[in-house]
Structure formats: structure tokens, C-alpha cells
């Protein structure tokens, strides 16, 4: 009986050993495979970094040439198409108010008249102080097209009008306008089913946005200062045909890079879908 049990145990042990051996070998080869994949992945990303370093060098060279004034085209170009400029700043970098003010001074020197400054977390709204200028609140103030009740935070700085925006001015603003539209129609007559298409038009939404104080003009150009090219929740209703240009981190902003961006914008052609 004892011998029988011992034999059974030995057989079981051999089975387990065989199973775990093959599993162990498979795991070992899987670890080796992962190591090789990881190595190639890192090599690939080193190649990407080298390409980025090269692009950065070319960009710096270009900025130097532009700032030296060698090319007349960068000194004399028309800003007539640029009625409204928006600047997106990463919220971490938005805390550097000195940099923001320097950026605004450069924009003013170039001749930009209306700027919307956006950061997702609303750091600019809390921290930036334009000295003598006053922030106008949501219920008063004038828009560029003369309508009242249309701006969130508006102030003047160096002969430019500055609008401060954050994430809540985007989707939540549209939600409030939607709520306003629907509640308005609920109060009036909700029985006329055929009117839905005429009620919910984009023009009515624009009016609702004005009524709730989340309206603003659509920027022609959007400069993004941050690690990645994305619009970070800029109000969607104002972004339809806006050209979006990524400028890199705010800490390495350059005047000549802004000049180049505005020059490139002046050469753009839009057909608006047609």
C-alpha cells in the first residue's frame, strides 16, 4: 500500500515538474521576447527623439534668420485676415504670468487687436492681473460685434482686448445654452411637433450662448503652447474653421516663431467645405 502511494506521488511530481518546466521555458522565452521588443521600442523612440532634435535645430535656425530681418516677407505681411487670435496655454505653464504678459506684448507689437487666452483649469482667470484694467463680468460688456451679455472675462491690455477662457466656458457653456433653449421652448408651446427642425438651429444656439453669456467670436488662428498639439477643450462652438498651430512649450516661446505662425496663417486658403 505504501509503495503504491509513493509511486503515485512520484508520478504526480513528475507530471507537475514536466508541466512547470515547459511553462517556465515558455515564460522565459516570453520574457526574452518582451526584452527584445522593449529594446527595439526604445531604439525606435530614440530615433524619433533624434528627428525631433533635428527639427528643433532647424526651427531655431529659422527663428534666428527671421529675427535677423533677412527676409522682407516676414517683416511686411498683412494681418487683415486675422480678426481674432486665440492662445491656448497648458495650465502648468499658465502660472508663469510674466511669460504670458511678454507673449501679449509681442502680439500687441505685431498688431493683433483681439486675443482669447485659454487654459483648461482656469489658472489665468485666477492669477493674471492686468494692473489698471478691469475685468468685466458676464452680465455686462461689449462683444466685438457690439452685442451685450456676451463675454465671460474681458479686459484690455496694451491696446488689445483680452478674453480669458477655461474648460467650463466650453462644453458646460454649451450645456447651459442647451438648457436655456429647451426651457424657453417648454415655457412657450411644446405641442407643435413640426417645429423641431426650425427650433433647433445653429443660429438659435448662437443666440442662446449669447443669452447665457458664453458667446464669443470664432478665432481665425489658435496658437497652442504646451507639450502636445491638442486644443485642451477650447469651446467647441468657436473652433469650427480655426487654424490650429502648435508652438511648443511656453518657456521656449520666441517672437520670430509667432511671426512665422502669423505669416503662414496669412498664406492659408480655406474653402469652407466647398
Amino acid at each position, binding site marked *: 500500500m505504501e509503495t503504491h502511494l*509513493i509511486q503515485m*506521488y*512520484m508520478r*504526480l*511530481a513528475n507530471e*507537475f*515538474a514536466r508541466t*512547470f518546466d515547459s*511553462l*517556465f521555458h515558455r*515564460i522565459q522565452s*516570453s*520574457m526574452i521576447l*518582451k526584452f527584445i*521588443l*522593449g529594446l527595439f*521600442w526604445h531604439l*525606435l*523612440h530614440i530615433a*524619433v527623439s533624434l528627428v525631433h532634435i533635428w527639427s528643433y535645430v532647424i526651427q531655431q535656425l529659422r527663428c534666428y534668420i527671421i529675427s535677423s530681418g533677412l527676409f522682407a516677407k516676414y517683416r511686411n505681411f498683412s494681418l487683415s485676415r486675422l480678426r481674432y487670435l486665440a492662445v491656448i496655454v497648458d495650465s502648468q505653464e499658465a502660472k508663469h504670468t510674466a511669460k504670458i504678459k511678454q507673449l501679449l506684448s509681442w502680439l500687441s507689437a505685431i498688431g493683433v487687436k483681439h486675443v482669447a487666452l485659454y487654459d*483648461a*483649469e482656469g489658472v489665468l482667470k485666477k492669477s493674471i492681473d492686468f494692473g489698471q484694467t478691469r475685468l468685466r463680468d458676464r452680465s455686462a460688456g461689449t462683444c466685438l460685434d457690439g452685442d451685450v451679455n456676451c463675454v465671460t472675462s474681458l479686459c484690455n491690455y496694451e491696446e488689445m482686448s483680452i478674453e480669458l477662457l477655461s*474648460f467650463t466656458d*466650453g*462644453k458646460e457653456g*454649451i*450645456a*447651459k445654452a*442647451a*438648457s436655456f*433653449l*429647451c*426651457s424657453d*421652448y*417648454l415655457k412657450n408651446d*411644446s405641442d407643435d411637433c413640426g417645429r*423641431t427642425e426650425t427650433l*433647433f438651429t*445653429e443660429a438659435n*444656439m448662437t443666440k442662446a450662448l449669447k443669452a447665457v453669456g458664453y458667446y464669443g467670436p470664432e478665432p481665425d488662428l489658435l496658437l497652442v503652447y504646451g*507639450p*502636445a*498639439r*491638442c*486644443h*485642451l*477643450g477650447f469651446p*467647441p*462652438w468657436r*473652433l*469650427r*474653421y*480655426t*487654424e*490650429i*498651430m*502648435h508652438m511648443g512649450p511656453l518657456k521656449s516661446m520666441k517672437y520670430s516663431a509667432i511671426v512665422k505662425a502669423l505669416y503662414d496663417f496669412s498664406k492659408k486658403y480655406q474653402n*469652407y*467645405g*466647398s
Partner: protein
Amino acid sequence: MELAFGRRDDHDREKRRPWVMDGCFIRVLSYSPMPRHIAFILDGNRQYAKKWNFTDGEIYQRGFCNLMSILRYCCEMGVEFVTVFAFSIDNFKRKPTEVQLVMDLVKEKMDAIIEDMNTVNDLDVRIKFLGRLTLLDESMRKAAEKLMAMTAKNKRLVVFVCLCYTSTDEIMHGVEGLWEEAKNNKGREKIANGLITAGDLEQKMYFANHPAPDILIRTAGETRLSNFLLWQTAFCLLYTPRCLWPELTFWHLVWAVLLYQRKYAYLEKITKRMCGFGVLLCQEHKKQIYSIYKVTLILLLKGGRSMVVESTCGGIEPKKSI
């Protein structure tokens, strides 16, 4: 592909590349998080036609062929959702002949896919048409509905084809949805008290309950969104290669994924910060986690045989949205 008059273009180089290379590259890329949803704006077809002397009909066929190639690459990369901006409401302003050409092409392809459903089902691809489909003629609308119904159970790759779509129209569609609910006395109080949130509106939009794009690729070097996915692309990487749509290749996709992987940590961080940690209103991301566990097995047998085994395993768990 040799065309009439002996024209050759970049597609020939694509076809000569061995498929094994694609597989190897994709394995290497997959070491890090891959994008789950990629959106495309197919710009540059008419410029391509001028460059290579194609007619309008030929160029849209070529554009469609390239779309199929790109979808195949996305499938191989493990991308789960692809959105294609096929036709904007603004495109109705184009010449009627051009609009009809595009519509005829879309109808032709829809009919071809409906006839050959086995291929689509074998590839496990689901097709969804999003947009104001009431602007299409009845036969197209019925074909679209039929195709959506026939591919509804497929899961490997979901292709959103935006037809007669603009983002502002999508937002209005969401508002209409809220209005319809309010008329049926659902959420009336919320509307009356001004308590509608962006989340409520999002639930009524075309892309409700689908993850937002991780990368948006617009070809032809254009840097605007042209009223496409304005709501969904808040934290989406925008990539604008200079090549025209029919020139978009596997390598452009690889480059886009590499750029995405470089910015992944930043995009994740900012998405969590804005949408709430653990509550992603906007996006779902796949996160690879590796769990290491020890399995200790000691067999004590008469005679003193013992064995200790350590094993390490890897697993992938998706990060869920709430």
C-alpha cells in the same frame, strides 16, 4: 498600380513592402499603449487628382482604396475604433456633379459590402453611419441602415463613417434629443432648473457611449478641424502630415502612433485632471498592467523531493470608464 497612360504613384511602393515588416513593427509598437480610436479627415483628394491628372471619379476610387488599406493597418495595430469624415454638410456647397459622384461611390461601396457580407463578418468589422442621414436620399439611407444592422454584432473593429456630419449639427442633435425627452416628461425638471450638464448632452449625441479619439489625422497639411469632432477631440493628439489622402501610408500611421506614445503620459494626466480621476467622462484608455505573482509549490514526498517554482505572468486589463 499601372494606370491608364502609364501613371504610377506611391501605392506601388506600398504593395511591394513585405507584410512581415508590418507585423514586426506593430509588435514593437505594441510594447507601449496603442491608440484605441483614430479619426481621419480625408483631405487632399482634389489636389492629388490635379497632381496626377486623375478625373474626379478616379480620384475618389483611389481615395477609397487607400481607406481600405488604412483600415487594414488599423485592424492589425489593434485599433478598436476608426472614424472617417466621409462627407460634411458643408460639402453640399460643392458642384452638384461632384456631390453626386461621391454619393454614387458611397452607395456603390455600400451595395458591394452588403452583397459580400461574409468578408466583412469574417474580418469582424462593424460599420456605423453617423450624421444627419435624413439629408441622404431614401435608397442610400436604407442601404446604410441595412449595412449597420447586418454588421451590428461584429466587434473587432468599429468603423464610424461620418456622412452629412458636422460637429455643430451633432451638438444640435444632442439638444433635440434632450428636448424630445423633456416633451415626454423625462428630465423636464432638470431643464427647467438649468441643471443640464455636458454629460447629459453628450449622451444624446452621435458618439454617445463611444470612446473619444486618441489621434486625429488630417492629411494635406491642413491644421483646422473643419467642424469635425470638435466636442470629442478635447484631449486628442492632432497630427497633420503634409501628404495628401491617397498618399497616406503605413509609415504615417506608425509615426502618428509614435507621437501619441511620446505624449501618452501627458494626455492621460490631463484627461484625468479635467475629467476626474477614475471617472473618465471623455475617454477610455487601455492601460497595460503587469502582475507578477509567485507560485510556490512544495511537494514533500517521502524521500525528500521538493520543488519551488516561480512564475511571472503578464496580463492586460482595460481601464474602465464610469
